[in-house]
């Protein structure tokens, strides 16, 4: 049977975890971040390294794997991991202070440096990691629809979605303009001044074109009753995967356990 247009644009996900309602996923993200902060305050070993957040990162990887989006997540995680690595190296080797732990030649690792290195880089890795999971398993359309469900103005959601589309449109346009300017003899290679000069003939037409375009879009939108008051209908609706309740309870339970565990360590 031929599918109608409204059926075609719906999103069906076989995976229960990936198909969770965005609001539930967001709760998981928030609670996970809270747990990360709690765990990072636990000091292990003699010199007090916050080692607990290193194995905690496995939770992100497990979530990505179970959601069946491992490949996509790894790709996005690489960028985050690079920043975390740079921070880790800089902090370990450069920040002085405290006892010197290891020393080879001119390189030395200090207590204070190692401590900040681990806590900073893994805090970033953990929190950015859980956001990667959220965004890689949720489509932008779903996020926008969930935002609207939670009471955000439809104009704001339109701006959000339209920004995402605009990026693709303008990236394409900028390449076209740059090629056109090159064909006219604008140099894009050479020393820094030459390259900086090439910036102008590309961006000015781009911004101007986009501006004139948005003027026309106002007319189009208004003609379709965009700013009309009244109840709106939706072509795209969110589905629930059925695992929302379980996931919420699990997330809250884990958080409570971690907080209690932290408090117990404190008192004892």
């Amino acid at each position, binding site marked *: 049977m031929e599918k109608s247009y409204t059926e075609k644009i719906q999103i069906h996900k076989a995976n229960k975890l990936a198909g969770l309602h965005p609001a539930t996923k967001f709760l998981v993200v928030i609670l996970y971040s809270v747990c990360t902060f709690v765990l990072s305050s636990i000091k292990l070993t003699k010199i007090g390294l916050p080692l607990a957040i290193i194995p905690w990162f496995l939770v992100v990887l497990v979530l990505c794997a179970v959601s069946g989006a491992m490949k996509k997540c790894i790709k996005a995680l690489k960028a985050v991991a690079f920043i975390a690595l740079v921070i880790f190296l800089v902090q370990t080797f450069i920040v002085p202070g405290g006892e010197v732990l290891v020393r080879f030649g001119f390189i030395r690792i200090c207590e204070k440096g190692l401590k900040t290195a681990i806590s900073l880089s893994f805090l970033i890795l953990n929190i950015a990691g859980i956001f990667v999971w959220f965004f890689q398993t949720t489509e932008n359309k779903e996020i926008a629809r969930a935002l609207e469900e939670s009471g955000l103005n439809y104009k704001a959601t339109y701006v959000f979605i339209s920004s995402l589309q605009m990026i693709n449109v303008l990236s394409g346009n900028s390449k076209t303009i740059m090629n056109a300017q090159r064909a006219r003899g604008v140099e894009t290679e050479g020393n*820094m001044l030459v390259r900086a000069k090439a910036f102008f003939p590309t961006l000015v037409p781009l911004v101007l074109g986009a501006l004139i375009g948005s003027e026309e879009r106002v007319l189009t939108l208004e003609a379709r009753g965009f700013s009309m008051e009244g109840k709106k209908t939706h072509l795209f609706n969110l589905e629930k995967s059925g695992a929302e309740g379980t996931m919420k309870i699990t997330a809250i339970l884990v958080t409570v356990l971690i907080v209690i565990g932290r408090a117990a360590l404190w008192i004892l």
Partner: protein
Amino acid sequence: MEGKKYSIKEDFSMLALLIIPVGVAVNFVGGQLASLLKLPMYLDAIGTIFASLLCGPWVGAVTGGLTNVVTGIANPVNFAFIPVNVIVGLVTGFLARRQMFQVWWKWIISILIMAAVSIVVSAPIVVLMFGGVTGGGTSIITAAAMAAGANIWAAFFGTEGVFTVLDRVISFLICWAVIKVIPARTLIKFGCGSNYIKEKK
């Protein structure tokens, strides 16, 4: 501008709403182009500045914030820099309202204010959250200065300062070049647009 009362809601007209996505995309493309041309700057606030110049501080702030939300989808580290871009939008917008972009010497003051504010806002984020380096092009210089024994704050301000001022000068010149060629009949539709129309004598 004879003491007209502004309301924030009025700022967000239909045209302003549609300028926000354009601004976000221009920020993104600007950053992309800067790395394509291998410039040692980010140039990722052109759209924010442009939106603030035309539609005032609040639209600019939303443009700035949304840019980092959208780029944060691909790399969540960008979420940390939302305040920087929001403040850039606000400050530029207020400067535009105060008509600080009319004469050349006012430009210099405004650009310096814009650069100073964005450094001051981003410094605590970079130093406290990332320990001074973010993996960008200027990070190497900052790290080298830190290794040589410089204070982490001094290292950051020193290296970022120069590049931020340059960044803002180029960003502003691009916005100005665009605004100069927008026809008056279009400019008048924007909140702050009438500031840029030269009256015919």
